[in-house]
């Protein structure tokens, strides 16, 4: 059982949260210009690391707010919790962010907020 530290409400039981999957995926706004393969990458391909994973969680039965979590998928250790729209600051999270193949995809390049 996970205990997640909600940045707004404090540590709470996993039952109160819903998991939103991989964080930091930007929608390619120029989607009429990118290929079907690149759009498929945005829509379906997901990072699935054995190790540090950057994911979104929502405190569904609490404050209902979203936040990001850097979590180890082997030990289930929660390494960092950080706000939506920001990037991880600690070493493990930073490394996971920079090393993810997603940073170099065409869909990410076509996202307006990059």
């Amino acid at each position, binding site marked *: 059982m996970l205990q997640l530290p909600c940045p707004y409400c404090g540590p709470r039981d996993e039952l109160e949260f819903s998991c939103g999957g991989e964080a930091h995926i930007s929608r390619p706004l120029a989607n009429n210009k990118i290929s079907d393969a690149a759009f498929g990458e945005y829509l379906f391909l997901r990072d*699935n690391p*054995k190790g540090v994973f950057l994911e979104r969680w929502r405190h569904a039965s609490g404050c209902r707010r979203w936040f990001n979590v850097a979590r180890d998928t082997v030990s289930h250790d929660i390494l960092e919790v950080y706000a939506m729209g920001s990037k991880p600051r600690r070493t493990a999270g930073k490394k996971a962010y920079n090393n993810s*193949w997603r940073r170099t995809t065409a869909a990410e390049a076509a996202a307006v907020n990059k």
Partner: protein
Amino acid sequence: MVASDIDRGHGALNDKKKRYSAFALARNAASYHQDWQRAWRKASPKASYDAVIIGGGGHGLATAYYLASVHGMKNIAVIEKGWIGGGNTGRNTTIIRSNYLWDESASIYEHALKLWEGLAQDLNFNIMFSQRGVLTIAHSDHELKEMSRRVHAIRLNGIDSDVMSPAEIKKFVPCINIDQSIRYPVMGGFVQQRGGTARHDAVAWGYARAADDMGVDIIQNCEVTGLRRKGRKIIGIDTNMGFIKTNKVGCVVAGHSSVMADMAGIHLPLASRPLQALVSEPIKPILDTVIMSNAVHMYISQSDKGEMVLGAGVDKYNSYAQRGSFPVPEHMIAAAVELFPFMSRLRMLRHWGGIVDTCPDASPILSKTDIDGLYFNCGWGTGGFKATPGSGHVFADLIANDRPNKIAAPYALSRFETGFLIDEHGAAGVAH
């Protein structure tokens, strides 16, 4: 009922002395069962193979068996990090059925079911295949209507499927609670009588023994550390037992598929999630079929040992830890107790988790990749066991001929580019 249009393979265990039979039992009784031959050799890797299958679970071993027995490729190896059948093959709830909605799914799961029927004879191994029926229950009017529609779609594909009323369900499963006053009452259901269960370990052992007999090397405790390429071609694999040269690599590693894909520099649309199951203490026979429920979310059967075997859906977060969170078993036990009130007095005996590779459309991937000679068989998610023989049969054909056959073609990776998904989220009998 064995379909004649499937090439079921041949060439394994032709030596009568090696075959299991009543005579073999009597012969070995005379020597106090001290002289039984090993079921498979303890192989160490050769320098090179015509093909290497990574992953010694049911699907991987079946692939190797059909490569050898149908396609005559005998200079091949199965590489397994742990021991064969120790992953999801030994962790699932052993349910077999082919009552899927879409034509593509009907085609592959029915292919598998036809291979299950007669597999014990093919492998000369008692896999304890029991066609005890699989009954899926509806708990609302809407669900029942959707089920009837599903039943018609399934029957159009020539697969047996029947709607049942609550009274018929009570007759079929006397220990079920059909009281209409409970929170999720039994409103009806649909049954596939040809569905059932098999002994999961025996499936791995049976395939391993038959493949080994044809010369396939089954190499355990051998972990793949890298895939070697020359340009866009596979030339071999690096393992903790050294480099193995090969031009064809089939990855059948379930929850670790993304890890293998990473080594190859390709990406898959998979999420690795824990799927949990549990068994009660053994009791006398009470449930002689398989019950599934989508709305209250669990599936249950009774093993030959007498344990009630329960499973449900995946945990909600990615994990490689082979364990899940407590709310999932709590939920499945609550559902089981409402449908089978007698179960409230049973104690839980064992509880475990396995890591399944879930796909966005809840259908598997059987595909070539951008790299020549690298093939993936993954994405079976929560429902891979039932497909074991079909998956291996079709994947062996893909590897041997370097092109997908009619059954495999819709399961190519390209569907995530074209959008031709095979959405089976509703067909699992339980939600994903």
